[in-house]
């Protein structure tokens, strides 16, 4: 059995960052400290200047399988994820058919295992058929392994239905993850309501479309005690609500996407659909609040909302384009460049917190002897020059830009899945 040693990196342990070697054997971290020369059997990786921490966990990935394999599939998404430093992704259930029953969860997880590059977990729908009318088979989903429940792509708008789901999930211990956009306030809108939309004459979505949903939902958290997670938070007032809920001790968490950290509605001026997603890019003040929220921990995690769409779907006028951009591949560099977190907070936001929110047992552990060897080595001084993607799709606002920071090595379950440039299979 081959062994690997990550030499001389800044190693992220529960006690904080230490300069050390990390020795891996048989899918497990066997030692952290000063490794001896291991001989021919050991692969030595020089990690001087790199941050060596737990593999990233994305709790918001659209694998597009089953149903939309022309956009992405489990295999291509897994390659993209590995290249981005991820060792686990949580599949969103808005596939075709939607993941609202246990057998589709088992299929999704099994496809992830077949590919074997990342651990694929599956979210499940809150409502049957994602139709927002009656509850999905929550206990069937739970038994198949779902911990994160969401109708992502659509909000669970009916407060009564949502309350029943939260009552149910509170008992199971699951998480209600909300795509928090009020359909009435968002109706017909394509971008953030503000001066840019006004100048473009585009129907727009006010920040309040998000905030009113989260405000209502937090009231239901008080009522039900259910774990509640705000997906792709975008507006400053929503960050305030989450902060207040946390101060109150409510089980509320939030994620933010790399694109909301990197861009604003000003970038929509040229009406390029690569900047179209839901929720929309908001104002510079909103972006600043998201950055501050991620730094302080009010926003727990980065989640990519990696949402591939084919070229022909995005080669249309902005208003006709589908929502969503890809981002798994560059998320770490974008976050490092645009937010500038210290290594502890960085791995917390990219790995530890998201794994905890989605309750993925083998992921998101600070490095320790005996822990599963899911490891990412990140060079904070490296450069990610976004020119092409391993995804089947190319709908991203990052092309042609450079970000400080680069994922150098990704190891999943003891096997190297990414090295600098190129995926190892």
């Amino acid at each position, binding site marked *: 059995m081959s062994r690997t040693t990550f030499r001389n990196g800044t190693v992220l342990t529960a006690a904080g960052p230490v300069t050390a070697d990390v020795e891996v054997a048989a899918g497990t971290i066997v030692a952290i400290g000063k490794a001896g020369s291991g001989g021919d059997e050991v692969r030595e990786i020089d990690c001087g200047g790199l941050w060596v921490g737990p593999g990233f966990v994305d709790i918001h990935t659209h694998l597009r399988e089953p149903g939309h394999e022309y956009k992405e599939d489990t295999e291509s998404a897994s390659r993209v994820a590995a290249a981005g430093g991820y060792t686990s992704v949580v599949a969103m259930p808005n596939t075709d058919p939607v993941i609202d029953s246990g057998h589709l969860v088992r299929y999704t997880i099994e496809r992830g295992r077949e590919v074997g590059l990342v651990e694929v977990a599956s979210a499940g729908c809150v409502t049957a058929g994602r139709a927002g009318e009656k509850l999905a088979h929550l206990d069937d989903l739970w038994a198949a392994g779902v911990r994160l429940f969401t109708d992502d792509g659509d909000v669970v708008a009916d407060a009564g239905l949502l309350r029943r789901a939260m009552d149910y999930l509170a008992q199971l211990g699951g998480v209600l993850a909300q795509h928090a956009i009020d359909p009435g306030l968002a109706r017909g809108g394509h971008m953030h309501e*503000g001066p840019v939309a006004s*100048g473009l004459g585009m129907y727009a979505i006010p920040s309040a479309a998000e905030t009113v949903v989260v405000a209502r939902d937090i009231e239901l958290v008080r009522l039900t005690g259910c774990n509640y997670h705000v997906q792709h938070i975008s507006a400053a007032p929503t960050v305030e609500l989450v902060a207040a809920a946390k101060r109150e001790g409510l089980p509320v968490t939030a994620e933010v996407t790399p694109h909301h950290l990197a861009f604003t509605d000003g970038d929509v001026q040229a009406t390029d659909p690569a900047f179209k997603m839901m929720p929309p890019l908001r104002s510079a003040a909103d972006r600043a609040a998201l950055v501050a929220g991620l730094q302080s921990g009010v926003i727990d995690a980065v989640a990519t909302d990696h949402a591939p769409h084919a070229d022909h779907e995005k080669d249309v006028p902005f208003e006709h384009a589908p929502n969503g951009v890809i981002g798994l591949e560059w998320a770490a560099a974008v976050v490092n460049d645009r937010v500038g977190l210290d290594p502890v907070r960085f791995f917390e936001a990219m790995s530890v917190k998201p794994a905890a929110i989605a309750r993925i047992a083998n992921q998101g552990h600070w490095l320790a002897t005996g822990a599963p060897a899911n490891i990412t080595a990140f060079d904070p001084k490296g450069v990610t020059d976004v020119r092409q993607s391993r995804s089947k799709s190319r709908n991203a606002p990052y092309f042609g830009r450079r970000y400080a920071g680069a994922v150098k090595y990704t190891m999943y379950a003891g096997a190297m899945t990414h090295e600098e440039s190129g995926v190892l299979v």
Partner: protein
Amino acid sequence: MRHLLTTQDLDRDQLTMLLDTADGMVSLLERDIAKAPTLRGKTVATMFFEPSTRTKLSFDKAAKALSADVMSFTASSSSLTKGESLKDTVLTVQALGVDLMVVRHGATGAPLRVAEWVDVPVVNAGDGAHQHPTQALLDSLTLRQHFGTLDGVKIGIVGDIRHSRVARSNVFAFSTLGADVTLIAPPTLLPVADSEWPVRTTSELDDALTGLDAVYLLRVQSERGGASVFPSLGEYRARFGLTAERFKRLKPDAVVLHPGPMIRGVEIDAVVADDPRALVLQQVTNGVAARMAVLYHLLGGEADV
């Protein structure tokens, strides 16, 4: 100038150049033989993905007055109904051999997208509620003919500004040319965030009226959800219509413009529409000249080597 997509892209020199040439085009249109061989051998494609009669006729006339060939495309006659994408459609038309595309589309930014896909100049003939730059040129030309300059001219734009590409184009063209612009509309029809626009806003037409040199009336666009943004047409006329009574209170040399088609009895009373100080037909004639100027300048060569 490679394309004409928005009036925000145009500086004062470019606007002035286009208006000066448009003046020259007016003199051509006044001749018995209102045609010059300037664009002989050039083909202009007018591509209207949203129905329009007036603008399309105006571009047709402008292209033909400069001896260009015109290929017309309208959404109803197109393969769009068969599911062909906008991109494939414009690439197909380009492959047929055209030198310039005039594009109208219901979606904001569609002509900007087309300009990225094709290798020929693109003229925005109206996109969503975004921009209609040749309308702004013809309006600026009409006002300049009347006042000699737009510097210091007080223009009130009245009506559904929020949903109006004409208003968006004119706000930037008029103010770049030095005019003093006031937007006058009920709150639901004012732009949502206008703080970055070079304008004043008010919802009181009667207060603003007497200070204006020109009143620019917008059409009430019932197809853009008119009924839901103000209570009734009658109420609109009462507060924002240019009635005969209000017309009498205007400065004696003030003029009235309207992009057409006019809804008489709603935004404008019939007697006002027929008054010589309503420059509506002059606007239409100037539309041809302004579009000729645009075609001529966009089809000129690159700046000197």
